[in-house]
């Protein structure tokens, strides 16, 4: 089948559709972004900067990066392992397990938070045990991390599974036939084949982990300077009539997301050939 290259729209309906798409994008993506920037700098650069270097804001940034820094690598390892299992082996109830993997996509993040309170809260299943051993999970860093892990669980696996299914096992089987050990196969055949999808999954996972609000809101305890992540910090500031502070923090969050996006685009641009080669698989 011959694929037709895209061309500039000529017909009237095509132009109308294009204009609509551009306008819609501007309306729902660009306008809010511009609004965030405008509100953040409403009183000038100085108030913007001073609200960002507040101790509470800095601690929120640190906490957000820390939570993402723990949750994302764990989910990356899990995602690779899960994708490997799902695409390389056949086992009973595979379909069911795959659907369960998608649960975090479909359930509300608030529920992803509440389940941990029901498990690890003082009156939860493990509450008495945790209290007896003075282990804090809910309303502390571990709670934030597990809530984030649950919400971002499928991102890496879901990127890898279709690709690895497409690629099949031919190259790996060949490597094994030629005498490669298990780890050799993984590092020299499998990983190079999936690295782009993996990078993409990790970036998506990171963006979501840093921006998550609902689940972490339930398990955070909202202690300023201690358990408020950046999205929670924004809510606090907004509720304190500090709109410059709130929007300044929002620009940071948007900035982190933009950095992620630029990183992804740069990688795509730099390795466009390789990427295209893998897509053709």
């Amino acid at each position: 089948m011959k694929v037709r290259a895209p061309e500039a729209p000529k017909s009237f309906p095509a132009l109308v559709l294009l204009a609509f798409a551009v306008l819609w994008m501007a309306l729902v993506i660009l306008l809010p972004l511009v609004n965030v920037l405008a509100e953040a700098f409403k009183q000038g650069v100085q108030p913007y900067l001073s609200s960002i270097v507040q101790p509470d804001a800095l601690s929120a940034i640190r906490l957000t990066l820390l939570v993402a820094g723990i949750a994302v690598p764990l989910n990356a390892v899990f995602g690779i392992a899960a994708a490997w299992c799902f695409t390389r082996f056949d086992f009973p109830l595979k379909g069911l397990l795959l659907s369960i993997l998608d649960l975090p996509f479909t359930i509300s993040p608030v529920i992803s938070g509440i389940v941990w309170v029901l498990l690890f809260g003082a009156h939860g299943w493990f509450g008495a045990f945790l209290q007896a051993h003075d282990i804090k999970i809910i309303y502390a860093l571990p709670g934030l991390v597990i809530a984030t892990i649950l919400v971002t669980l499928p991102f890496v696996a879901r990127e890898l599974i279709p690709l690895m299914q497409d690629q099949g096992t031919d190259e790996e089987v060949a490597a094994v036939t030629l005498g490669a050990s298990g780890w050799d196969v993984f590092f020299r055949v499998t990983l190079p084949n999936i690295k782009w999808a993996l990078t993409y999954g990790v970036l998506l996972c990171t963006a979501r982990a840093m921006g998550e609000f609902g689940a972490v809101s339930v398990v955070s305890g909202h202690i300023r300077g201690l358990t408020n992540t950046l999205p929670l910090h924004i809510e606090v500031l907004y509720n304190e009539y500090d709109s410059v502070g709130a929007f300044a923090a929002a620009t940071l969050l948007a900035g982190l997301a933009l950095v992620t996006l630029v990183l992804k685009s740069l990688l795509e641009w730099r390795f466009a050939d390789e990427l295209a080669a893998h897509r053709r698989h």
Partner: protein
Amino acid sequence: MTDRTTLSRRWLLKGAAATGLAGQALSLVACGNTGKATATTLLNVSYDPTREFYVAYNKLFAATAESPVTVNQSHGGSGKQTTAVIEGLEADVVSLALAHDIDAIAEKGLIAADWATRLPYNSTPYYSTIVFLVRKGNPKAIKDWSDLVKPGVGVITPNPKTSGGARWNYLAAYGWALKANAGDTAKADAYIEQLYRNVPVLDTGARGSTTTFVQRGQGDVLLAWENEALLALKDSAAEGFEVVYPSWSIRAEPPVAVVDKNVEKKGTKELATAYLEGLFSDEAQKLVAEYHYRPANPEIGKGFTDKFPTLPLLSVDTDFGGWKKAHADFFAAGAAFDKLQARINK
């Protein structure tokens, strides 16, 4: 072979980055632990509108304390905060919107049942009342509770199921209706139902409602804590709002208590007690007034009569038989407010 070297170099880089991150993570965790282990950190779990007051009071307390002390704050709807403390949020002290919420924590064994008697003025360092915040010039001419049920008046109040302030609002409105109708509960019920029919947005907390009214411009009148209304007035002077005092309101008392079980575990009992006792000092009582709460100490209150007009106030204890009864009558599952909502949503 070149392929392999580039690959491994990339891996090295990734590995280095990961190690750096992990190292940072460990050091941060370590910092967090040492911070919590020392007995000079307190956690005050409070309700919504006290944010600004406690920022100021914490400074005052830190300045008078013998050794350096950090007080962390957590704010949210009073009911939500109560649940968090019950579920294990390790508050040294709670400062909630109504006694019933502290009672709920006491029922779980975290606070001694006699908490209210441990500090002066029923453990209530400040009180407030419920007032109306209206838009500049009062275009809908809202003067008293009777004006809230007129057609076309949008009333903003939070949900009494989750917000302490909203419960005070409800009781103030209902209490007025009883007075106005010579104790006829059927008429008071009809009034309160009509009132909630005029509510377009039920936020979960008092601060949420204030933002809805002030920042998002919803509704014609906000039922608010007097302190919240005065704060909104001060923070958004340019937009223009007015406070209206109704003919009757309620004495809204947000109490404080040391969470016994948590302070015993953390060894912060003395510090936490000193923190709450400090709220009753003359200096703190003046700060209370500065942040728009009415000081519990009547002597200090005398200096602020201009700021806080005198008006007749209902009391939960004498007019509604105490919080336990008021909660069972109005806010418990299946009680008056649930029935009212079911009728409105029909």
